[in-house]
């Protein structure tokens, strides 16, 4: 092998070794950077979890603080209408549930009329099992708490308020209506300002959580409607069938 060829092969070897060193160095830098990213992500996850846990009410305090709205039944219902009405209608709903919105838009006016004329005593069961579907803002609980507050302090406006909440029902999975939007709807429905101001205290949140817990073992979904304690299995989403069933129950 001539000197020239030896030099050439040495240069090739050196170039290869240099390339391998560069690759190792690059991989070391990438490993280190990856390690930093991993640590950063773990820290971010812990911080996010701690923040989320901070928003959570203390379960012990919740159990002690269950205050039912005035007039509420032991079964977690808000009764509306004359106690002497011949027909009792139980409606289980979640203000986030799109089908409850459809039910309300189809039958709300009829139910309001039957309550007003003294035929129906409506047992409203506001539930909050769809809290998971409002991007962390717990819209179901906030809406149900507002309704319970109205039931407690201004029961005359509760049907108008419920109708308004469903007329402006937010999309499932979104953040829901803001507290201000709920307050505005309440004022428009005739709830006075001092009652609206009580929404923010979330005084009935533990009561809603407790009645949701109990009710979830008794029904399979929302909306659920019972006439004189019996499950109504007819069409919930067109006006007519429910009214007919109520009229039939009244005749019996």
């Amino acid at each position, binding site marked *: 092998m001539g000197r020239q060829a030896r030099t050439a092969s040495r240069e090739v070897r050196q170039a290869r070794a240099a390339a391998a060193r560069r690759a190792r160095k690059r991989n070391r830098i*990438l490993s280190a950077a990856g390690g930093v990213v991993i640590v950063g992500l773990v820290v971010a996850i812990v911080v996010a979890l701690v923040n989320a846990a901070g928003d959570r009410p203390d379960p012990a305090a919740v159990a002690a603080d269950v205050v039912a709205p005035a007039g509420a039944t032991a079964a977690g219902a808000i009764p509306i209408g004359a106690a002497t009405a011949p027909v009792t209608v139980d409606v289980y709903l979640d203000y986030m549930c799109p089908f409850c919105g459809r039910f309300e838009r189809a039958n709300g006016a009829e139910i309001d009329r039957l309550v007003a004329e003294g035929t129906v005593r409506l047992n409203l069961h506001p539930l909050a099992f769809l809290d998971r579907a409002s991007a962390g803002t717990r819209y179901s609980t906030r809406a149900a708490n507002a309704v319970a507050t109205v039931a407690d302090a201004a029961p005359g406006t509760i049907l108008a308020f419920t109708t308004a909440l469903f007329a402006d029902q937010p999309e*499932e999975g979104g953040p829901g209506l803001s507290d201000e939007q709920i307050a505005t709807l309440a004022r428009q429905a005739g709830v006075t300002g001092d009652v609206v101001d009580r929404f923010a205290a979330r005084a009935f949140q533990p009561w809603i959580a407790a009645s949701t817990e109990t009710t979830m073992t008794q029904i399979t979904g929302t909306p*659920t409607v019972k006439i004189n304690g019996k499950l109504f299995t007819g069409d919930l989403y067109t006006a007519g069938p429910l009214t007919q069933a109520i009229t039939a129950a009244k005749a019996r």
Partner: protein
Amino acid sequence: MIATTLRRVRQVRHADGWIFGTMLVSACLSLAASLVLAADAVTLAADPAATLSCNINSVISCGTVGSSWQARLLGFPNAFLGLMAEPVVITIAVASLGGVRFPRWFMFSAQIVYTIGVGFAYWLFYQSMFSIGALCPWCLLVTVSTTLVFATLTHVNIRDGNLYLPTRVQTALDNAVAADLDAIAVAIWLLAVALAVVLKYGNALLG
């Protein structure tokens, strides 16, 4: 001492037992989750009352979500795809654990098909995070286990040079795997998914 341990861990990490064992466990988890989701979708389809109410115990939140177009992109519930694909992965994993060597073209095809599958899984993950917004634990399990199957399949295909790559790219990937960059990448990937879930659903998870 630490260096020895690290070398041992590396040896195990690149061995068939670890790679195909992880693949097998992940594919089984994915299959189980798909089965739950498929059964739920069938119940939902068979019971008109269930599709017309917000079912309290349903894993697919309200009927609107279960019957959303994203939930049945190809005209049938997405979970059926998992029921079809995961048994194949399980077969590959079990056969490989038993010492079977599949031809290069076979592993390459499996890589292509599973890459499409993982893309679909992440499209669904994105949709459920930002369009549907419902927390679905079984869907999350599918996302994570699909990722692990994809990672192990890619790992073994890089190790065995099954991907028909140019020499330069293959060498670079070999070096990266030798430097454990693949494990770091998978860790970052899964932690990023976990962070997204915690940020979006932290309140629901703990509240």
